[in-house]
């Protein structure tokens, strides 16, 4: 029975974390109406979380689109249907790669920043100081960051997809000389607004909530030491990656 003990404790830890973050989410949602009355705080977070991630998202989007275009061209060339490259890039980005890669990049760029910021505020007693000034740090610090992340993610995904499509266009049309007209018209013919576009937006909203929740949760409950904050930051990246991929499977199974 001894060999079962380790997985048992891992499972127990996992369930405990799931429960705690679920409760934390309820706590955040309860204060959301209050936070919406101070939109300035949320917009500030959309700037620091969203706008500051733009360069990373755009450069990554361009390369992902270019790789998709190139791989698609090489494969489709065998079937003499290279005009479908645009459709392949667009569907790949809208349905999967846009939301998933943006969420993973988001965890590395904005998630770690959120976790270490909140964790350090706890370690340096700034959160306790706020409580002593009769200001609830969950309301003042955590909720605006959570909402900022949820708002930023769909916007970042949209930009990632747009730049990615441009990357596919660069490789397909400019480099490989596919006909420009058929590139766009094939996209127009095969990408369905309801099926593909909407499902991408739903995914990006859910991923935004998952990634930001994990980041603020880990930061808020980080051990108030240097090592504790660094561990929490690592957990943010690892847990977000796992959670996003798992949730992606569930959403895909439900929506298509």
């Amino acid at each position, binding site marked *: 029975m001894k060999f079962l003990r380790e997985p048992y404790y891992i499972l127990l830890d996992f369930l405990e974390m799931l429960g705690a973050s679920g409760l934390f989410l309820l706590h955040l949602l309860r204060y959301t109406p209050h936070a919406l009355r101070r939109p300035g705080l949320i917009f500030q977070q959309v700037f620091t979380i969203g706008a500051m991630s733009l360069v990373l998202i755009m450069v990554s989007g361009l390369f992902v689109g270019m790789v998709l275009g190139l791989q698609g061209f090489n494969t489709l060339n065998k079937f003499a249907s290279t005009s479908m490259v645009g459709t392949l890039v667009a569907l790949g980005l809208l349905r999967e790669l846009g939301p998933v890669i943006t969420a993973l990049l988001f965890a590395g760029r904005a998630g770690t920043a959120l976790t270490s910021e909140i964790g350090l505020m706890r370690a340096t*007693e700034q959160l*306790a*100081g706020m*409580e*002593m*000034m*009769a*200001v609830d740090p969950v309301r*003042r610090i955590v909720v605006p960051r959570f909402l900022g992340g949820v708002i930023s993610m769909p916007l970042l995904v949209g930009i990632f997809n747009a730049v990615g499509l441009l990357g596919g266009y660069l490789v397909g049309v400019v480099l490989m000389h596919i006909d420009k007209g058929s590139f766009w018209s094939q996209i127009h013919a095969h990408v369905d607004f309801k099926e593909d576009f909407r499902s991408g937006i739903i995914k990006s909203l859910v991923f935004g909530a998952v990634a930001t929740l994990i980041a603020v949760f880990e930061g808020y409950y980080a051990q108030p030491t240097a090592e504790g904050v660094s561990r929490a930051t690592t957990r943010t990246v690892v847990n977000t990656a796992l959670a996003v991929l798992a949730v992606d499977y569930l959403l895909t199974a439900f929506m298509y």
Partner: protein
Amino acid sequence: MAEHKHSDPIIDIRGLKYRRGEKMIFDNLDVSIERGKITAIMGPSGTGKTTLLRIMTGQVLPDRGHVHVDGKNLLKLDIDGLFELRKRMGFLFQNGALFTDYSVYENVVFPIREHTDLPESLVRHIALMKLQAVGLRGAAELMPTELSGGMARRVALARAIALDPKIIFYDEPFTGLDPISMGVIVRLIRELNDSLGLTSIIVSHDVEEVSSVSDHSYLISEGKVVAYGTPEELEQNKSAWVRQFMKGLSDGPVPFHYPAPDLAAQLLGEETE
């Protein structure tokens, strides 16, 4: 230890019990803080002085006892009631706990903006006056990283008095300061207390500085009040423990050595464990 109960205490603690893990931190502690005065809580490191401060401000809940602050039973308050009470309290953390991303000025206006709807021009006036009171109006635009330890503590003090509290708590206000900064803080504690009509509570083990500023002192050790009185009374106290603490003697009722097995036995490897 004689009972001390003032006729109208601003903070009244009776029969306080608090344990952390196996260790009993407070065992039937009685403390009563007189309104308008500066009261010091002294004792060796690790006796739970800071914990007592956190109990008085509702940051830590005791296991048993009666904690009344400004007429309110702290243990019966909900979070809104507690926050309402805390608007009348200032708390100076040992490290200042300034918001590192905000400038000195923004730190001081933070509580005013959070709790009032005053026009910006008035908020600015209040903040500048609070900074003037601690002598740092000229440092308003600096960031906390640009401040020395003593200055950071003064900014934190300006922030703590921003909402004109009734009670102010100082957690180890003299630790790690140079003599000049120490003198400045001692002066500020006295001046603010008298000019703003505050009640001040200082937790510290810096006997000399505390004695120079406090009206009364509690000496706490091992969960109990060992002595209470004015600095002069404590100076005259006959108890060996109080004398050791007040004079800073290395040996006495508190032995120099942490409990250990016999030295010779341990060196010769005869210990049982």
